[in-house]
């Protein structure tokens, strides 16, 4: 890992205190977010706020299992986010496919396709676990260790290869065939 400049250190510490998230809610994991945000656990006290679009967001929450159809969208969305960007995988689905691991279309390991900075184990992870994960992520960001976005750039070809292998090429490009 390269040495960070002083500006980057400052920027990283800002980044760690202001995390704007985009949740990609495909599964039951989203259920756990509202309590995390509201009065009981109050995510906002860490500077974590939901954002509407990938352009504005810093982290992407993948809350649940992915299949070949949704993964394409996740990648598309991830690539639209501004650097530096982080990915948090929720629950066992993103780690090993969860209970649907043997389905023909389920994606079993997310980090073959996009770099994941933090995984939260559990099915489903409770708000406490989520907050714990966020704290861990903040710590990582502050130290400059959350470098998924750099890895994605560096190993772009590898990621692309994986993506194409699983998803296949799309031959007809229009709104009805995707």
């Amino acid at each position, binding site marked *: 890992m390269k040495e960070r400049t002083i500006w980057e250190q400052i920027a990283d510490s800002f980044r760690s205190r202001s995390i704007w998230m985009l949740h990609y809610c495909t599964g039951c994991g989203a259920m756990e977010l509202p309590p995390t945000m509201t009065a009981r656990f109050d995510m906002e006290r860490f500077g974590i706020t939901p954002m509407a679009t990938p352009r504005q967001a810093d982290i992407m929450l993948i809350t649940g299992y992915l299949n070949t159809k949704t993964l394409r*969208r996740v990648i598309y969305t991830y690539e639209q986010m501004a650097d530096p960007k982080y990915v948090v995988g929720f629950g066992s689905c993103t780690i090993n496919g969860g209970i649907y691991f043997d389905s023909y279309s389920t994606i079993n390991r997310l980090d073959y396709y996009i770099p994941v900075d933090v995984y939260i184990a559990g099915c489903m992870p409770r708000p406490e676990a989520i907050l714990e994960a966020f704290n861990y992520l903040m710590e990582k960001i502050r130290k400059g260790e959350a470098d998924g976005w750099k890895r994605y750039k560096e190993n772009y070809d590898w990621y692309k290869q994986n993506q194409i292998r699983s998803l296949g090429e799309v031959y007809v490009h229009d709104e009805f065939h995707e």
Partner: protein
Amino acid sequence: MAMSTLLVSLVATSVVMYFISKASWKIGAILNFLIGIFLISYVFALSTGTTSELGTLFGQKLQLIWTNASYYFSLVSLLVIVSVMLFAIKWLDSQKYPAAFNMFLLMMTAGSLGVFMAADLITLYIFWEIAVLSSMLIVPMGKKESRKAAVVYAVMSASGTYMYLYGAFLAFQRYGTLNISEIAKHMVSDPSTGIKATIFLLLASAGIAKSGIFPLHTWLRIAHGNAPDAFSAVLSGQLVKLGSYVLMVSVAALPSLKIFSNIPFYSGIPATNYFLIALGATSIIIGTLMAIKQDDMKMLIAFSSVANGGYILIGIGTMDPIGFEGGVLHVFNHALAAAVIFMAFASVVYRTHTKKISELGGLIHKMPITFLAYLFAIISLAGIPPMSGFISKWMIYQALVRKGMFITAFIAFFGSIGSFLYVFRPLAGVFLGQLPKKYKDVKEVSPIMWLPMVILVTISLIIGIWPFPILKPIEGMRMDFGIAPTMKIADSSHWLIKGFAGNWNPVLVFNLFLIGFVIAYILYTLFPRPKKVDLLAPHKKEGAPINIYTGGEFIYNPDLYQYNTKFYAGFERMYEKHPSWEKLLEMLAKFFYDLGEWVHGWFFRPSPSAYTFWVTLTILIVFWVRW
């Protein structure tokens, strides 16, 4: 050259121009442009007070006089016309009747100049009709709908004109003169308010019809919307201003404050003026609301002309020194802005062949200069500093607030904020957003076409920063009309414009904006450089999706991702069931048709018996009446 010689030779030249243009329209257009340039220099060279005589018509001398008002209005007109003439040099190749266009454009120029030079009502009328007639013959050169537009335009214009004529002769019958300043003197001493008010309103009605004020505003939509595209710029930027001129003549040259001092209505404004102001206010409301919901970009700006005509009328109608100057200055601002906007639209139509906002989009990628011209023009039209449009609006507000005319002020504010809405609609729908696939090979128009726009916009910007050159003739005009002759509004030595309630310094404001912009730019460069998102990706490569936020969806056809139909749907819904004045007037026209039908059915039946019946009946009635 005397003014009369100039006008007569212009009219004659226009006919010659037809034959020249028949040989080569391009030479004709260039000659037109050169004549326009000559006219501008001529206008600059004339000194105020010059008179000239055109001849004698039924014992009345037809006189021309060069005043501050003539200077100002001629200059504004010529700026617009000459720009369009330049524009037309290239644009005409898309037109079917270039020779006739050149001829009538030049004739219309002569007519307009004559109107501004006229010293008496009948000379004004003659040149007025020349201008109307020649413009009326250009209007139907557009698409199919424009034929009907020409008829509507002619009839509406004529309805105002003939009321004017009636008023002029009424004045002549009563005062024995047609000279405007003489009539003004007579009217001040005339004790009969009823007659004076009648003359006043009849004279003003020509202006009302021409500048698209409320009861006679409906022709603007159809005529401006369907006229040949570049000519819409003249229609809206220049011809409508003839109406404003006549309104100014009837309100200010005939000193309405003195004439109607016995019927004050509100805050020192006579009832007659207030009536006009009310009409102006109604026009603002109608113009604004209708403009907001138009999908046809030319019609949209046509309605905006209705609204802006209302501003001018309100400003002049108050006869307040600031309000008057504001109203008159608004003529300049709206002329330039509308001309540029219509020329920009003409360029768009020239390239894309449609004027529906919902069929366009993203042209900024293809026509950036046109876009910029349009942008600055709408900044001026919406009355936002640093463009000149703000100055006049500011002045009008000053007058309205000073007079405590809150309802009128409310309407003016409404129109002003509404103008943000409607000018933004074409900006967003035509120039910004996604470029539809069918326009991927569209190119920027040639420099001959964008140059006039850029020039006009630059003038507007310069005047917005340093308005004193244009305020000078306006102040002169105000002195001529005797509205607070001692008051000084433009203080060029301190760079100030003085309102009744606080001043402002346009140079400073512009500089502040500049400083703000520079600071913003410095901040901008300090931070990481952006990565470019190619909005034209789907056009360049088959099968590339658009790379903006789509909620995770892949979109390959940018046409689908453009928001320009029913742009203000939420607001439009609120008044979609509005009553339509246009329909009412159409009903009136229909009434005359039906009357014709009725007359035909009753009196012109295809049978000799009916004729006999009517002959007999007439004999009997006449005998009965006469005995």
